[in-house]
């Protein structure tokens, strides 16, 4: 009897781990193990062929003096600032409007979401065509007599990053619309009604009643946007490859280039480690905010 009970208890204890085993094995093999590998390789001079030799923090000293790294980091920060403002405002406006129409709610939600499900390579190429100086939007601008607005969108190092970010933004903002719509659905209607009875203007209701209640949605969106901004890769990779010069280089494209095309996996791992560090800081930061109960 006692032995059976013991056995039963062990079985009960092991059962969840048995269920988790396939997932954990897969995740440790593809993600967990290699991350540790990256942290190790970051301290070596590995070129992908010879045995890696340990060079301490030399790669990190190199990183701190690497002009391309700083350029890429700064571009990531600009990218983040663009994404924290433009698509958020667009999506907030669109979702507020959608929540106030009776007909076509579903239609608008679907239409703004469509770009998000399309392959990023295809949409990136599509925007390369739109930015093409000879067959793109410039042609239409000339036609409309707005030739002075025509730009070498991807060729001018002052605007290339914004042009690429705009393409990504077009692809992405519908996702934010849906998140905001879900937040708006959960708003407390009675407060709004009370404010209307008190004679508050629509703008004041938006600012003092709706926005504060959307705080959890904002916290979630900002967390996703900051994490994704530091991992941004697709659009730059397809549209500009980091150019002209390093004007659109991002940490992820720089790292990819070093690892896959420049045969410097050791140093690429150092760049990757710095990216992981930023991501970790963001996650811990938001974890702290959550703990403080700020988003409830």
């Amino acid at each position, binding site marked *: 009897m006692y032995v059976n009970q013991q056995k039963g208890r062990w079985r009960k204890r092991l059962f969840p781990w048995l269920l*988790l085993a396939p997932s954990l094995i897969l995740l440790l093999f*593809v993600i*967990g193990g*290699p991350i540790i590998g*990256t942290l190790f390789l970051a301290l070596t001079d590995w070129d992908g062929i010879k045995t890696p030799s340990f060079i301490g923090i030399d790669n990190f000293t190199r990183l701190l003096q690497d002009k391309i790294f700083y350029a890429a980091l700064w571009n990531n920060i600009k990218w983040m600032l663009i994404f924290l403002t433009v698509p958020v405002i667009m999506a907030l406006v669109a979702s507020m409007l959608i929540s106030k129409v*009776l007909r076509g709610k579903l239609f608008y939600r679907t239409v703004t979401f469509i770009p998000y499900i399309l392959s990023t390579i295809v949409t990136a190429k599509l925007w390369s*065509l739109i930015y093409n100086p000879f067959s*793109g939007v410039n042609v239409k601008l000339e036609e409309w007599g707005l030739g002075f607005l025509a730009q070498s969108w991807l060729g001018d190092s002052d605007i290339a990053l914004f042009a690429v970010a705009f393409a990504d933004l077009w692809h992405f903002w519908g996702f934010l619309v849906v998140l905001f719509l*879900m937040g708006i659905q959960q708003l407390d209607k009675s407060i709004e009604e009370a404010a209307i009875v008190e004679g508050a203007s629509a703008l004041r209701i938006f600012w003092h009643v709706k926005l504060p209640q959307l705080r959890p949605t904002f916290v979630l969106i900002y967390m996703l946007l900051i994490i994704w901004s530091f991992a941004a890769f697709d659009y730059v990779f397809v549209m500009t490859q980091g150019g002209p010069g390093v004007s659109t280089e991002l940490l992820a494209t720089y790292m990819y280039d070093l690892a896959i095309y420049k045969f410097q996996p050791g140093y690429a791992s150092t760049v990757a480690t710095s990216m992981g560090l930023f*991501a970790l800081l963001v996650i811990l930061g938001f974890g702290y905010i959550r703990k403080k109960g700020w988003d409830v």
Partner: protein
Amino acid sequence: MLRRFNWRHIPLLMFTIFAIAPLVLIFSNSLKSKEEFGQNPLGLPKALNFANYAEAWTTGGYGQAFMNSLIVSIACIIIICFCASLAAYALAKIEFKFSNVIMAFLLLAMSIPMGLFLVPLFFIFQNLGLMDSLLGIIIIYSAIFLPFSIFLLRTFFVSIPNELLDSARIDGCDEFRVITKIVFPMAKPAFLTVMLLVALWTWNEFFFANAFLQTEELKTVATKYLAFTGRFGNDWRLISAAGVITVLPILVLFLFLQRQFIEGLTEGSIK
């Protein structure tokens, strides 16, 4: 009727045009001939001419690419549904030590940049002969889309009342049968969502596919398209046709099952 027109439709229609116009452009360019594109790169085509599609399909080798993407998608769906459902049940319905550590690990695995595990993976796979093989890419995709799928299924499992599972246990079901006979059948809609999202991700992914699949015959649809645009440089009518071919299956799937797509993608990221 006119008086009741809601002014909000005007800005919303502008947003609609913003979202749709580039898609209209790629579709209309895919129908133009070379000369027509040269004269009129941004306007609508004069006639519906699907010749570009046939040319892009055969010269691009899209038949093979579709097959590869289909194999990868289906294999990933099977692996992910199997692993994620078991893990999600453990995290939703069993109290055990370190379950919060596992949740934290999953969250971290989901949000860490993919570059952080690219390099060692590249060389591990080279040594294991998983480089340049569909099996290799299936393993990678199954792992990277697993955490999100676990969270999604877990959210659904949590909502299944414990009383229901307990009454099944009293009726003599062992734990395994509770899972397969009660929980899984109830979670059918959640499984459908996971299947759709995995299909979407595997179809569009190219960060890993581009690095790990080099043989032309093994390329998935997304990487095939990248190679195609490299080969045809500025022939925008072919590039447009190939682009439409690439996105069409997902677009059709989305238009039929948009609720599952939208709710799955957003709910998984909230919880």
